């Protein structure tokens, strides 16, 4: 059973496997494949017995429709019964975690680790503190694993994203959670506990990393997620410093194990309503949440339903831009990608704000749309330039950026995470 303990109570949450009756074509492949006979059917629906399903995923890839790949978090003692499932015409919506009744729960929510509070405050200072999430954001799970009781993840992949000769070593690291339930949404972060003790003999601080994969995982149907990690070799002042957590992560090999806490983040989340637009601005590893959101939209993409995606992405050179290859292969109708390179020999230095100015009209049109959500993630240094660019293009098109920004913030449509 994929189970976890919520807060300080002892209620078990089950990630229940269900089949979407609207999509299923009743081919019987899943029932045939299931090694424990958890799947059965009547003349109407194919259903999964929660008490038998062993999460082996054997049924997932042979399913020709994807109907089999559906999951709902429920209280283990309130799992959907076979009799209920047999009557469904459509899948029920996910019950928000807060609404899952927890009998005998301790009302005081578990507090966030100090490190996490501190980092969250610093990274959102650019927008004046933590903003509300988009109204259509999915309900996030927070703080399922504490420093005292972290989750144990296994590394299932560690790939270098930047060219071998690039000055920065940015890596794509895939963590597998086995049977532990760690549901994350795009834009959320998880904390990494580097092993060992610091110079003062204390455990290392928690380091937070934005999840780079969408909610169904880096590899859908497997209980995994990915991180985008840059090997830190200098501090903000440029002095030689080996970042503890980043070097620990970048050196991991397949099969190594990592202690993970979290997930965290209730604000920097994506909207899910049809027609909502994403305006994303990032540099370097700030691309992680943007990749997660883009990938979510790509996988769920129902034409005519989803809104526009526009990305401004800055790096020194193409060789240092994480996910450069996959990005450039995305269809233009799906996402408008604008790449700024600041250190290409014999070319003028270009920054994300330059491209925002160049695309002024399209950006302003998006800003005028009340379904547009703006995300900024990356180095602190970009905030000022981006702010000025917005201010400029707005005034040229008869908008007041300061008042618009306040409105965006209040409506949960402006999200900043910088470091």
């Amino acid at each position, binding site marked *: 059973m994929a189970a976890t303990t919520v807060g300080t109570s002892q209620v078990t949450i089950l990630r229940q496997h269900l089949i979407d009756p609207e999509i299923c074509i009743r081919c019987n492949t899943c029932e045939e494949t299931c090694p424990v006979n958890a799947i059965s059917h009547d003349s109407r629906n194919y259903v999964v017995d929660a008490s038998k399903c062993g999460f082996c995923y054997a049924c997932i890839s042979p399913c020709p429709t994807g109907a089999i790949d559906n999951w709902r978090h429920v209280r283990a003692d309130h799992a959907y019964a076979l009799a209920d499932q047999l009557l469904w015409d459509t899948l029920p919506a996910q019950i928000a975690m807060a609404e899952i009744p927890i009998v005998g729960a301790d009302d005081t929510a578990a507090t966030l680790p100090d490190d996490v509070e501190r980092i969250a405050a610093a990274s959102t200072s650019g927008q004046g503190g933590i903003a509300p999430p988009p109204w259509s954001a999915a309900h996030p799970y927070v703080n399922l694993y504490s420093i005292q009781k972290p989750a144990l993840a296994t590394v299932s992949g560690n790939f270098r994203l930047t060219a071998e000769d690039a000055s920065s070593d940015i890596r794509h690291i895939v963590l597998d959670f086995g049977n532990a339930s760690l549901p994350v949404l795009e834009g959320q972060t998880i904390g990494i506990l580097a092993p060992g003790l610091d110079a003062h003999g204390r455990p290392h601080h928690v380091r937070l990393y934005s999840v780079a994969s969408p909610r169904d995982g880096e590899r859908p149907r497997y209980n995994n997620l990915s991180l985008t990690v840059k090997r830190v070799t200098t501090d903000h002042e440029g002095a030689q410093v080996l970042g503890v957590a980043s070097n620990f992560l970048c050196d991991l090999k397949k099969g190594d194990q990592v202690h993970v806490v979290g997930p965290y983040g209730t604000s920097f989340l994506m909207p899910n309503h049809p027609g909502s637009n994403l305006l994303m601005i990032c540099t370097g590893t700030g691309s992680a949440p943007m990749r997660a959101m883009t990938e979510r939209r790509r996988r769920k*993409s129902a034409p005519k339903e989803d809104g526009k995606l526009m990305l401004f992405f800055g790096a020194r050179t193409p060789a240092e831009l994480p996910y450069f290859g996959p990005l450039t292969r995305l269809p233009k109708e799906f996402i408008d990608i604008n790449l700024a390179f600041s250190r290409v020999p014999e070319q003028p230095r270009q920054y994300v704000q330059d491209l925002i100015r160049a695309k002024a009209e399209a950006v302003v049109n998006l800003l005028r749309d009340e379904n547009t959500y703006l995300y900024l993630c990356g180095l602190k240094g970009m905030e000022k330039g981006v702010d000025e660019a917005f201010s400029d293009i707005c005034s040229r098109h008869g908008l007041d950026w300061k008042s618009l920004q306040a409105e965006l913030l209040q409506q949960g449509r402006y999200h900043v995470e910088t470091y």
Partner: protein
Amino acid sequence: MSIDYNQKIPNNVDLSENKTLQRALEHWQPEFINWWQDMGPDDSQNFDVYLRTAVSVDPGGWAHFDYVKMPDYRWGIFLNPAEPGRKVNFGAHKGEAAWQEVPGEYRSNLRRLIVTQGDTEPASVEQQRHLGLTCPSLYDMRNLFQVNVEEGRHLWAMVYLLHAYFGRDGREEAEALLERRSGDADNPRILGAFNEQTPDWLAFFMFTYFTDRDGKYQLCSLAESGFDPLARTCKFMLTEEAHHMFVGESGVGRVIQRTCEVMNQLKTDDVAKIRAAGVIDLPTIQRYLNFHFSVTMDLFGADVSSNAATFYNTGLKGRYEETKQDDDHQLSDATYPILEVANGQIIATQAPYLNALNERLRDDYVRDAVAGIERWNKILQKQGIPFALSAPHKAFNRKIGPLSSSKISPAGKVLSEAEWTHHHLQWLPSAEDRVFVASLMGRVTQPGKYANWIAPPARGINNQAVDFEYVRFN
């Protein structure tokens, strides 16, 4: 130059351990490739197609997607893993250990079952070979080719059994499988439905929905066989068959979806206006449905059949979900209702169950097929169109069995010859219907573009976008 056929024929049957069999299949392989070049998808040999290739029988071996040139598709031989201690689960031999070799006395019946099943596989490839030239999108073209290569692999599966277990006879049958031609007057395919044309994409979707579903039911009954290698082969084939039915169900659903959209835009149910707008009117879809449903009904064979009784009694071919049936699995004294026409009415009479096993399988099939038609009706309901598709009566338009001597309406009313002549064009596609549907079939090959008469799919293959370049032309 020596070719490593172990690499060339992926398999999980230890082919390299059996040199005789390996040589026989090596000999057959170039003939298969020649057949594919001659009768496989027309004018497609150089395309890179985003295909799923089965590289092993475990679930992980299923997720292997990549661009492949179709003649280079790795047709392999895969059997589901053996189930230790498996028994013959029905018939006179119930309770004996399942056979790993062909029992001598059942040899010719077993060969006949395998040849009949095997013959349908290349037949459907032949029937569909021109469709690539009129595909409504790259996505659909890719699905067509996926269906085609997997039918090819199913032929390999049957040929493997013929070669491995039937000696010289088996090898000759394997060659004959490449010699018969769908619709050929002199040397046709064995079963009627597989000599019909698949002239357009609506026919293709109906075929994959209705006729490939017959395949599912035949394979399910063969997967119960006491002859273990046949059971294991069919079990694995079923996994692939599922995709074919998906292509059919979603294909027809998308045609309905698009027609509804246009009907709502134009606010009309006038067939002439709907056709003028370049989409397929719902009555025509119903007529195609009637045709494919009734042709597929015949594939189950005669309502009363001594062959069916023999196949069951001797443990060669079971019922659908045999081991889940709650009876004695021998059926010697049981009866089963079949239909016949008496005094101008269709009535049910009881026949010995063993002889009525074709009818039993047909009934299992009808339940499943009807459930899918209801899912299509949900699309109509969602779009607010007051029209419902329905399956015709199982006695409608039959060409095989006692019911074929009567004329019966889709509602199950027995008709005079004159009434049939007067009405049948309301129920079956006319030449004019087919010309109209054919007139819509223009090739669309720009990624993300879909022909006007069909809606894009809700999601792409393997989580790719719907505008993914599913086929690359070279």
